[in-house]
C-alpha cells in the first residue's frame, strides 16, 4: 500500500513554502513524483488571500500590514482571507485524488474529519459547521481549510491553531465570516505538556486513518526535485 510521506519543515517563510508546494504539485502532475506528501510547517506571521476573498475581509490596507512586518500573499487556493502565525500547525497535503477519490467535497470533508479526530484526543469536541468549511468547537473556529487542485493533485491545505496568539486574527475578518471568534487548542484544552509535538503526531495519525494510508516520516531530502523526469502511469 502506498504511504503518505510526512515531512515536517519546521518554521519557514510562507513565500518559500508556497513555491515549494507549487513545484511538488507540478512534479506530481507530470509524473516525476509518485508519492502522496503531507507537509507540516509553521509560518512567520502572514496573511493570505484566497480566490474567494471579499473586499471587506481585509479591513486594513495591505500596505499598512506590510509596514507592520506582515507579509500579504494573494494565492490560488479556495476560500477567503486567513492568517498564519507561529503556534499554528499548517498542513499541506499534496495528494493525487485519483488514487483516493476524485471528489473535492469528499476531500474537504476528509480533512475536517482528520482534524476533528485529532482534536478529540485532546478532549476537544470539534465539529463541522455546514456551509462553512473548516473545523469548529463550541461555535468558535479552530482550523481553516483552503485548497487548490491541479489535475486532481492537491495543494494548499489546513491551518490548525495550536497555541497561536489569537489577537492577530483581529487584523482580518477570518475567512470572510463576520463575527467569527477564533480559538486554539491551548485555549480550549488548557495546558498540555509537549503540545506541539503531540498535535503533530495526532494529526498525522488521523490523516493515516481517514485516508486509509500508512503515514511514514520522511526527510526533507525527499522534496528535492527528481533528477531525471520519469513518466507516470495513466495519470
Amino acid at each position, binding site marked *: 500500500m502506498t504511504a503518505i510521506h510526512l515531512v515536517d519543515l519546521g518554521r519557514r517563510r510562507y513565500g518559500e513554502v508556497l513555491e515549494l508546494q507549487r513545484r511538488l504539485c507540478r512534479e506530481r502532475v507530470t509524473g516525476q513524483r509518485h508519492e502522496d506528501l503531507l507537509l507540516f510547517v509553521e509560518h512567520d506571521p502572514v496573511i493570505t488571500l484566497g480566490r474567494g476573498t471579499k473586499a471587506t475581509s481585509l479591513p486594513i490596507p495591505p500596505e499598512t500590514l506590510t509596514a507592520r512586518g506582515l507579509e500579504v500573499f494573494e494565492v490560488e487556493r*479556495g476560500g477567503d482571507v486567513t492568517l498564519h502565525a507561529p503556534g499554528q500547525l499548517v498542513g499541506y497535503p499534496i495528494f493525487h485524488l485519483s488514487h483516493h477519490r476524485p471528489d473535492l467535497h469528499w476531500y474537504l470533508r476528509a480533512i475536517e474529519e482528520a482534524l476533528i479526530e485529532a482534536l478529540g484526543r485532546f478532549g476537544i469536541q470539534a465539529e463541522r459547521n455546514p456551509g462553512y468549511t473548516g473545523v469548529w468547537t463550541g461555535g468558535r473556529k479552530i482550523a481553516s481549510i483552503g485548497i487548490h487542485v491541479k489535475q486532481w493533485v492537491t495543494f494548499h491545505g489546513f491551518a490548525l491553531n495550536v497555541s497561536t496568539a489569537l489577537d492577530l486574527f483581529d487584523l482580518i475578518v477570518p475567512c470572510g465570516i463576520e463575527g467569527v471568534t477564533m480559538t486554539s487548542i491551548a485555549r480550549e484544552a488548557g495546558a498540555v505538556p509537549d503540545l506541539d509535538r503531540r498535535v503533530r503526531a495526532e494529526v498525522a495519525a488521523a490523516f493515516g486513518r481517514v485516508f486509509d494510508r500508512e503515514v511514514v516520516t520522511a526527510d526533507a531530502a525527499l522534496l528535492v526535485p527528481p533528477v531525471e523526469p520519469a513518466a507516470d502511469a495513466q495519470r
Partner: protein
Amino acid sequence: MATKIVMEALSPTMEEGRLVEWKKAEGQPVAAGDVLAEVETDKAVMELVARAAGVLLKQTVAAGATVPVSSLVGWIGQPGEAVPDGASGPATGAAAPAGASAAGAAPAAGSAAPAAGGTAAGAASAGVGAGAGAAGAAGAAGAAGAAGAAGAAQGGAAGAGAGAATAPAGRVKASPLARRIAADKGVDLTRVTGSGPEGRVIKRDLDRAPAAAAAPTRAVTRRRPDGPPFEDTPLTQIRKTIAKRLVQSIGPIPTFYLTTEIDMERAADLREQIKATQGDAVKVSFNDLVVRAVALTLVEHRACNAWWLDDKIRYWNEVHVSMAVAVPDGLITPVIRNADLKSLTEIGAESRELAGRARERKLKPEEYTGGTFSISNLGMFDIEHFTAVINPPEAGILAVGSIATVPAVVGGQVVPRKRMRVTMSCDHRVIDGATGAEFLKTLKQLLENPISLVW
C-alpha cells in the same frame, strides 16, 4: 468545428461552481491541457483544462459568475470561426448523444469504446480524470480518444473534434429525434439495430430498444456508494431454502461454475500502447487488467462481492481482491485492498510487491485475510481453462486461463484472435446462476473494451 467548454463537476455532489477567473482571454491560442479558468466550489479551487486546441473563441460566462454543472461557459475553435448560436450543438456533433461521440473516438479507442452516457456529474468526473491522463503522458492515442468520448457525453466539452470529422466508418446513422431519445434514455446507439433507410436508427427502433441496450452508463456509475464498508442482510426464506437444499446435494459449499471466453485483442493492444509510450517505467500485466476489471465489476455487481456467514450474507461495499499466489509449499492469497479505487499501475505495483513477499513468506496476516472475492490465474502455466475452489467466506472466485491465439469468427470471417477463458466458481447460497452470468457479462465487456480500465 467549435468545441464547448462546460462547468465541470468537481464532486458528484456539486451542483454549481463559481468561475473565479479566466486564465485565457478571448482570441488567445489554447493547447489541449492548458488551464482555461479556475473554478471554485466550497473552499476548493480547481483548474478547468482545455480538451481541444485552437483559440478561445468566446467566454460566455464572466469571471465571478456561479453557474450550474455542465452548463456552457465558453467555446474553443479555429481563429475567426463563428460561435454556434444557442445551446444546440453544431452538426458535427460536439453535443451529440453518447453513441455518436463514442463512434467519433473509434479510430483511437476501438469501435465500441463504452460511451459515458450517465449522469452529468459522474461523466464529468470521468472526463476530468481522463483529461489528466491525456495531459500527463499516458497520452496513448486511446486514452486521448476516450477523454474525448467522456467529455463529449457530459455536454460537449470534449468535442472529439478530429475523430468525429475523420471517422465516418464507425458512426451510427440515426435521425436527430432518435439521437435525442437515445440521449434521454441513456441508450448507446451503436447497440441499436436501425430499421430506417440504409439501417438508419429511427424513433421506432428506440421505442423497441430494451433496457439492456442502456449498458454504457456503466463507465460512470461504477462508483462505490458512500457509506459503511458492508451491509449484513438476514437470510430470506428463499435463500434459506436454497442453502439447505443445495448443501444436501453438494456440500458444504454448493458450487457451480460459469465459463466465458473473452477476446483480449484490445487488451493486448492497450498493453502495447502503454509499453510504447511509457517504456520500462510502467508495467501493466494482463493480470493487472483482470484484477482491475474484476474490481470494477464487483462495484457494479455487489451480489457477487459477498460473504456467506451462515445466518446472514454480508454484502461488501468495499472491494478487496484476494489473489492466489503459488508459494513453494502451497498457496496464499494476498489481498489488494480497495482495488476498485486503485489505478492499473498501482494494482500492478502492489500485486507484484505482495506476491514477492508472499513467496518469501513475509506477509502479515492482515495482508492475506479479509478479501471479498478471489482471482486465481494459471495463464502463465498455459492452462487454458480450469475451475478454482472457493475461498470461504467469500462467495466467488474467478479462474483465469491462458491467452491463446485461436480461430474466431469476427464479422463473418474466421480470423486469429487472442482469447482468454475465465471460469467463475459461485457459492450458490449467495450467487444464483443469472447473477453470476451478469457479473461475467460486465467483466467481459470491460476487458474487451479495456480503455475504460485506464481512467
